């Protein structure tokens, strides 16, 4: 049985070392009545056993470095190691977030240049890097929209329009920021239904949250009309930048009529996904929303860069300090290496790879939207329901063939949905291999459906009992397992 580290404790073993004690220090003792009395139930483990434990766990996990990972909406592209090298430079890692401005000019220049580059790329005019992830970026963007309406004396605008195909974060963010959500249906072409959008707009409309290309991978050909409808109703347009990868150097959200947006740097700009973070969610906006950007902000001054910690119009703070600096530092280098020239190439190749896969998979699955896609596409894996095989089963069987599953059952509007995003990183050989594997799985569905329905068979675990996990939650290692207490 797999053991947690807490079950590997051996009394008295240790890994740590501390600087030598000095008589000058040891005479100081904290007041007794405040001291902790209960033991700290942590395991006692030497460094070799710690290292082996976590090396072993790494081997029980798939990553982009080890497997093709076509997880739609997540843009699992190469995480270049040069980014890691840069983030580990002591000149960056040893800087304190409250250091005097003149001692961290390199950091401040990096922040200023990152924002300038992103603004240029997205057709925006100002921004902030303080948000620690895309969801926090959304929250800030929506708070800025609220501040804008309040300033104009239109606080009654309390509704945000959100397509039914949107990421779950959009409605969750809207509610967190105090708005009501109005869901806009998707039409048969996978686009926002313009008539329904018009009907939903009112004097209470604060804005529209939109992903373009949307979550089925389609660019909206009526984007300019959408922008016009919302703006004429007095609302603002929020761009969810989760799908920015195929847009770079081709078209800019600012030119589509968006007023404010966020970017997920761990998607488009190659910062490591890290098993679910840390992310980074820059917010960019047009001039009219700039006053509301969060603080602190970096300002270029006569004799270098300075930090503005507060101002009268900002919505205020969103993170402890300056956001995930060591993450946007990686994105900065990635942009520097590519230039706009290289970023456009990324966008084109992401579109090419996705359309190629879509064309090659058409004989196996229903393709609900036949028009060219952008960086990702959906297949409807409902062709094999009569054999009892669902999208979930196909996803699990892919794991056995050494391919990470696509995103499944999202967006919710497509039945037995698989959202596939190969990214620009992948080569033709990998894409062809993916198609061959899918063909093989379809053969298996016909010849031995049970094999697929009970997959995976070669992973560190077979299917896990999620109902038990939720009904009888065990959420930490029990302290009896730990030898120290």
């Amino acid at each position, binding site marked *: 049985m797999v053991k947690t580290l807490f079950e590997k404790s051996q009394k008295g073993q*240790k*890994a740590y070392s501390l600087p030598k004690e000095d008589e000058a*220090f040891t005479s100081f003792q904290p007041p007794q009545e405040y*001291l*902790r009395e209960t033991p700290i139930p*942590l395991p006692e483990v030497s460094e070799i056993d*710690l290292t082996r434990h*976590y090396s072993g766990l*790494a081997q029980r996990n798939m*990553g982009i470095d080890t497997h093709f990972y076509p*997880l739609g909406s997540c843009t699992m592209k190469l995480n270049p190691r040069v980014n*890691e090298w*840069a983030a580990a430079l002591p*000149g960056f*890692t040893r*800087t*304190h*977030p409250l250091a005097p401005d003149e*001692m*961290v000019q390199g950091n401040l220049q990096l922040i200023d240049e990152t924002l300038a580059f992103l603004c240029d790329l997205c057709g925006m005019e100002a921004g902030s890097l303080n948000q*620690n*992830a895309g*969801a926090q970026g959304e929250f800030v963007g929506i708070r800025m929209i609220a501040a804008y309406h309040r300033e104009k004396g239109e606080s009654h605008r309390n509704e945000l329009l959100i397509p039914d195909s949107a990421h*779950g*974060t959009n409605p*969750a963010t809207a509610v*967190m920021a105090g708005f009501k959500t109005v869901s806009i249906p998707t039409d048969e072409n996978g686009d926002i239904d313009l008539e329904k959008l018009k009907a939903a707009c009112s004097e209470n409309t604060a804005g529209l949250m939109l992903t373009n290309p949307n979550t089925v991978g389609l660019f909206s050909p009526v984007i300019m009309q959408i922008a016009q409808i919302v703006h004429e109703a007095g609302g603002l347009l929020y761009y969810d930048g989760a799908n920015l990868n195929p847009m770079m150097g*081709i078209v800019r959200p600012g030119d*589509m009529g968006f007023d404010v947006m966020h970017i997920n740097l761990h998607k488009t700009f*190659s910062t490591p*996904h*890290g098993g*679910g*973070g*840390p992310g980074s969610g820059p917010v960019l906006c047009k001039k009219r929303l700039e006053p509301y950007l969060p603080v602190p902000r970096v300002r270029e001054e006569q004799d270098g860069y300075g930090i503005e*910690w507060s101002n009268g119009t900002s919505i205020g*703070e969103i*993170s*402890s300090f300056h956001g995930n*600096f060591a993450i946007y530092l990686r994105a900065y280098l990635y942009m*520097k*290496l590519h230039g706009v*020239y290289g970023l*456009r190439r990324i966008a084109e190749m992401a579109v*090419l790879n996705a*359309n*190629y896969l879509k*064309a090659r998979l058409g004989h196996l699955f229903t393709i609900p939207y036949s028009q060219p896609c952008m960086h990702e596409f959906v297949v409807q894996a409902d062709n094999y329901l009569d054999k009892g095989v669902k999208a979930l089963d196909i996803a699990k069987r892919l*794991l056995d063939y050494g391919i*990470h599953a696509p995103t499944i059952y999202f967006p919710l509007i497509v039945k037995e949905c698989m959202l596939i995003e190969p990214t*620009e990183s992948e080569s*033709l050989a990998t894409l062809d291999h993916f198609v061959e594997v899918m063909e093989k799985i379809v053969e298996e569905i016909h010849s031995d459906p049970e094999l697929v329905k009970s997959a995976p068979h070669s992973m*560190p*675990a*077979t*299917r*896990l009992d*999620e109902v038990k996990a939720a009904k009888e939650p065990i*959420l930490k*290692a029990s302290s009896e397992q730990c030898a120290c207490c």
Partner: protein
Amino acid sequence: MDFVSNTGEQAKEMLQAIGVENINSLLTAIPEAIQLDPPVKDDGLSEYEGMRHMEALAAKNTFPSFDHYLGAGAYDHHTPAYLSAICQKSEFLTAYTPYQAEASQGMLQTIFEFQSAVCALTGMDVSNASVYDAANACAEAVLMAKRQQKKRRKVLIGASLHPHYRGVVDQYLESQDVDLVTVPFRSDGTLDIDFLEEAVDEDTVCVLLQYPNFFGVIDQMEEVSARVKKHEALFILCANPLVYGLYQSAGELGADIAVGDMQPFGLPLQFGGPYVGYIACRQGLVRQMPGRIVGETFDTEGRRGFVLTLQAREQHIRREKATSNICSNQALAALATLLGVLWYGPEGVKKLALTNYQRSAYLKEKLTAIPGISAYSNAPHLNEFVIRTEGPLDALIERCEKEKIVPGLPLERYFPNMKNHLLVCATEKKSKEQLDRLIEVAGRG
């Protein structure tokens, strides 16, 4: 440069398979009027050029050449060398959120162990997989408390909470149906418990306090806790987790929610991020918890395994009814801090905390023995304290900076009436020679 694999020839072959002439034919949904012309000039860099550029930028930061005494939510501790070796392992670095549990057992188990370590330190029942940072953890904790106590409206927050954290709490609470009441501190930085006693009532959602507080002061939290409990308000304790190696745990103090930042256990300062917000609570509050939680279960063969659980709280399932919009958290940074905690172990965490206490206590005693410098507070501390200068603080700072020392954080920016107050932090990294040098330079005035 770029990291694209396919050649022009391969691209042609793929276009043929799709049945179009060129890539532009795939972009026809984009209105022509807003399409950009392709850039003609390659404005990128080679990897080597990029590396030189980053080195030059890093060299513009002079701060690392100073001996500094800054803390205030970002602490300069030793980072065990094995941390980066583990965190840079491909399968941790380049995996995504463990949606496919069978292919993500490694990451899921590390999150489970992170939750266990946070519970061990804080003495709480349940932890989640991490939130962004301490400020975010404070805000999410108050939102949790409000969900639990829907009918109550009053939220009490110590004025001695880190001002940045307070700013973020305000940010998240503005659209909530709550009244924020600030509990003042006394002239020595300790909480005004009488004010608190007056203010807590049947309408109080929760009380949020920091431990040690922004001034490094350890408040009498047992007394506070008793007063909060009397009215069934929830007690939220925001703490530098190192405190739990020395002083009473959140569990011992009767806290309902324990939050803070795991950064002191192994993450470099890196200009303030990524850090790791932690959030732990009593069992009874688990369904109000935001973000990812990993639980233990079995697979179909009866083997132990781990899955994301209690997902009915989360945005990808519940959308507008979710407990929070958070999805990405700080997983890789959380792993780093887990490795930091485990490297120290139960004995090492205690010794680390004591070492921090002793070195800062030494510094505090010697600095405040200098004529013209006094202690702001005599309350217990961990590794931070505030000093007050009779003369202008700027003169002391300038003198130190000339000697390549940053002596601490001036507090006037946060509290305008705290002119000439300096927040000073000393960790285990400070040798006696370093401390004596600061004392000598400070004493020259």
